[in-house]
């Protein structure tokens, strides 16, 4: 009997990461937008992966079950941390991870709305464990936003998403991509994270950097898995102060080669 119980509890080992779904409001207005977040609570020492996991790992995946006419965006990611594993580097999140999501209520919605997120993720420390869970959130119909206990956390999560819309130029010197970025303010330094795998070397995307009168010039290291010379590269750049502290969540830059002649 005891042996059976032990066997059962070994099979149903408690999950490492806890999944929750939170929203800024307890209520919804039909047809209006709401800010929400998929939350993964990780114990110390464990991590999940950024949208570009780097040299190993996979990002969390969320599938939605929503009432008719409702919509949910793909979860966004805060800026990642670099996690070294031998010579290779993964891009990860640690601690309480909030992945911001925009919800759109159906115009025809009536009554309580039951929103279900089915998520699976890989959580790693020394080894990795694939986990999955379902989180449910019920919103009541209302005439405006009724702040929930998670409102500040959700607002903070939205502020932690890197901005988009950075533009810059790309030029190839042999096999080396060279990009120039403006509009990074008075950054004393930069952290750089390629947004897609297989393009730049994750362990050291930037070979050399120098300030220009307008911004920065970066010599990049291509990934050994990259084929040819793409005409565009995407990089998250996070300005840092002289002590290396981040000045905000950074901005995603698209660097494009000038169109070649006819």
């Amino acid at each position, binding site marked *: 009997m005891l042996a059976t119980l032990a066997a059962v509890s070994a099979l149903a080992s408690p999950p490492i990461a806890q999944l929750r779904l939170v929203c800024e409001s307890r209520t919804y207005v039909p047809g209006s937008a709401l800010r929400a977040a998929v939350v993964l609570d990780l114990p110390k020492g464990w991590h999940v992966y950024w949208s570009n996991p780097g*040299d*190993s*790992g*996979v990002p969390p*995946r969320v599938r939605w079950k929503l009432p008719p006419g409702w919509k949910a965006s793909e979860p966004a990611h805060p800026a990642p941390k*670099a996690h*070294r*594993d*031998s*010579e*290779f*580097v*993964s891009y990860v999140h640690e601690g309480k991870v909030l992945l911001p999501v925009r919800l759109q209520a159906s115009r025809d919605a009536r009554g309580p709305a039951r929103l279900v997120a089915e998520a*699976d993720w*890989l959580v*790693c420390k*020394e*080894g*990795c*464990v*694939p986990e999955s869970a379902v989180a449910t959130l019920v919103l009541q119909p209302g005439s405006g936003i009724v702040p929930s206990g998670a409102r500040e956390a959700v607002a903070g999560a939205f502020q932690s998403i890197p901005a988009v819309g950075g533009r810059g130029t790309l030029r190839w010197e042999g096999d080396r991509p060279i990009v120039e970025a403006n509009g990074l303010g008075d950054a*004393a*330094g*930069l*952290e*750089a*994270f390629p947004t897609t*795998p*297989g393009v730049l*070397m994750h*362990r*050291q*995307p*930037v070979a050399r*950097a*120098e*300030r*220009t*009168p307008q911004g920065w*010039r970066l010599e990049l*290291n291509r*990934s*050994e*898995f990259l*084929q040819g010379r793409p005409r565009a590269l995407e990089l998250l750049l996070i300005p*840092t*102060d*002289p*002590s*290396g502290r981040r000045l905000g969540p950074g901005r995603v830059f698209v660097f494009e080669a000038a169109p070649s002649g006819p």
Partner: protein
Amino acid sequence: MRTPIVIASAAALFAAALVVAQKPQASQAQVGQPAPAFTLKDTEGKAHSLSSFKGKYVVLEWTNHECPFVRKHYGSGNMQKLQKWAKEKGVVWLTILSSAPGKQGYLEPAEAKRLTREQGFACAAYLFDTDGRVGKAYGARTTPHMYVIDPKGTLIYMGAIDDKPTANPDDIRGARNHVMEALKEAMAGKPVSVPSTQPYGCSVKYAD
């Protein structure tokens, strides 16, 4: 005129890279180039050298039986099926363990022998690279991470086993298997259409 970056800025710039090796060791393995030579011992203590397989296609498979991505392909029988298919075509399949002693997935030779028997591995040899030298020479970074070498000893494919980077066995059906495709194309005298992909899986558990 460009101002060279000051030292403090350089330190901050590489905050993401600081934690990694200061002198990035470019891995030697490159598609189209000779595959790095190696000699490794199998579960019986017998040494196998890559050079002794000249004239045959060789597949290298990095493994760690505790990694969920490896379990995806062995638990479903996908890896064994691919190994058997390759064996019938005369391909030499070498499964390589780079987990260091004390790290996840490390096995003593006797344990590895039992594992390969229990799970029906169809590899020609299960090789130990517990100091990680061969893995690093190939730039092996995930389990699984796959390499295909042609009869001349040239690397013709490196990367993921397939195009579905998940730990879910349900994703094997309908996935494009890059290893099988590279072998089929090369054996038909065609160039390999996808010679290199970003691998997916757990990190290789090298010695610290």
